[in-house]
């Protein structure tokens, strides 16, 4: 039982990061109807920003956090301004946007590999290696910190989307972008905000991933898991993304704990295909059948 609880909490901690990333995917999908495949690369850049802030410049931890978030927001906005917005004004199809996003991802990842090499790097920062005992379970300090901060940020995001006027505008655009534009909502401002928020999510996720595990150019592949999480929750649904992320994190940890850690990723893809087969709209998604 203790092992089960241990696995569940570790899973929740990974799931929290998945949830953050999944929210970044879902937010963009809900408004622009395309998957931002460049998301993994942005998260990787966040981790690299942390790495350099700590290893090369010896900055304190909060500065590393700020650097990660700043760089991902800048990249997110830059891709939006350079690539996605001109394509949307030209009325390009979803496939076009998706291929462009893939291109951004391939470009950033391989450029980083060329410059810094593909090997795994470690952030030189000693977390207080303290475990906190909750009943029979010992939980790492970083795990708790990651889970709590992810939940806090998600709560803030929910407050922002639910209570502020900008949140209302974003939700209106998610419902119907064209009509929202007709109602006097500046959709360009909204897209700016949405890409900034999704960049923020990528930055925070990159910060925690970089500190907990390792930093390497191909680490963005983790964001595929977040995509799976947002599919489980229903693409475009924010609560679905959060629940999907936590669910996938826990399931994965259970699989690697009880079955086999080599086939953990295989399991995630199997979950993706099974979810798409049995309930293509996910847990909370709206009807996703494309209407031309």
């Amino acid at each position: 039982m203790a092992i089960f609880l241990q696995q569940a909490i570790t899973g929740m901690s990974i799931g929290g990061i998945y949830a953050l990333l999944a929210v970044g995917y879902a937010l963009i999908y809900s408004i622009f109807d395309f998957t931002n495949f460049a998301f993994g690369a942005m998260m990787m850049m966040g981790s690299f920003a942390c790495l350099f802030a700590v290893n090369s410049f010896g900055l304190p931890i909060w500065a590393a956090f700020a650097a990660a978030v700043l760089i991902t927001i800048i990249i997110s906005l830059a891709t939006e301004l350079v690539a996605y917005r001109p394509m949307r004004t030209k009325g390009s199809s979803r496939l076009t946007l998706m291929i462009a996003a893939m291109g951004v991802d391939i470009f950033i990842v391989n450029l980083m590999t060329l410059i810094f090499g593909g090997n795994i790097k470690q952030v030189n920062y000693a977390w207080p290696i303290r475990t906190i005992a909750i009943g029979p379970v010992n939980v790492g300090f970083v795990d708790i910190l990651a889970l709590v901060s992810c939940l806090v940020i998600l709560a803030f995001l929910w407050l922002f989307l639910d209570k502020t006027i900008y949140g209302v505008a974003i939700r209106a655009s998610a419902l119907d972008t064209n009509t929202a534009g007709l109602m006097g909502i500046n959709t360009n401002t909204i897209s700016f905000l949405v890409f900034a928020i999704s960049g923020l999510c990528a930055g925070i996720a990159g910060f925690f991933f970089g500190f907990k595990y390792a930093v390497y150019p191909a680490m963005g592949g983790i964001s595929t898991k977040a995509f799976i999480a947002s599919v489980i929750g229903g693409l475009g649904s924010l609560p679905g993304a959060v629940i999907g992320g936590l669910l996938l994190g826990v399931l994965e940890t259970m699989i690697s704990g009880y079955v086999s850690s080599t086939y953990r990723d295989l399991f995630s893809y199997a979950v993706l295909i099974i979810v798409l087969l049995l309930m293509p709209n996910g847990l909370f998604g709206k009807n996703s059948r494309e209407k031309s």
Partner: protein
Amino acid sequence: MKYTATVLLLAGINMIAVSGCTVLTGYGGMFSLGQAGFMSIGAYFAACFHIYGHIPFLLAVLLGALVSTAAAVLIGFPVLKNKLTGDYFAVCMLGFGEAVRLISANFKPYIKGAMGLTGIPRKTTLTVVVVCTLVVLFLIRNYLKSHYGKNLIAIRQQEVAAEMMGMNIMSNKMWALAISGFTCGFAGALYAFYATTMYPTTYGSAKSTDLNAAVVFGGVNSLSGPMMAAIILAAMPEVLRAFAMWRLVIYGLLFVVIMLFRPEGLFGNKEIAGELKRLWRWIKRVWAWRTTGRKEAG
């Protein structure tokens, strides 16, 4: 001379793989991130058939390609039955490709897991590749010119309208996926008999990117465009060593630039043969005008 032959051989193998992706992505509009998985399946099975089953080389290659076709149908059935398009389709295929890589890296008997399969005899020669490429291209060209090809174009442009016209969306897409599975498996198998080794990482996501790059650069609704791109993209890393390193960076950048300024690709909706014919007619017209013009002047 041997160097040129090698470059031609690699270009031919790449053309075979890209021809199927042209059907799938260029005509069918289905963007797949896991085509390398089919190449892996074709290569492993063909090598195993030859080494452990003592099946002759070409037959083993063909059987490997058929196994990879079967894999395409197996994954395609649930995916297409549920009408997954766009991002969903792409990610499902990514999952498929990763699954193939993971299984082949952990499956120890016969294919030796991550250690890789070595000692495959080198049987692929330039003649074999050229003949195979010509046959495959001829078949693909006929397929695309038939009503199947026209159906695919219709489905890509307006899926709902095509369905209203009485087209069976699922079977048409399934054919496209199966064909791409066949050609990719075929190309993978030929390459395995050239390289003599086969690792789970031989066909990774970078290979899928290569194949998609050829189709995206070459253009939609065109066979000769992607073929041209396939030759250039296969020869570039061999001719320009520096290009091999920067290749993926440049592809990424070009994906964005082409999607921005020419989303239909460089030879979108055009065939090189047709363009050459038009050029030839234009030259003849100009020539005729000049000669007649001279006569009048004289």
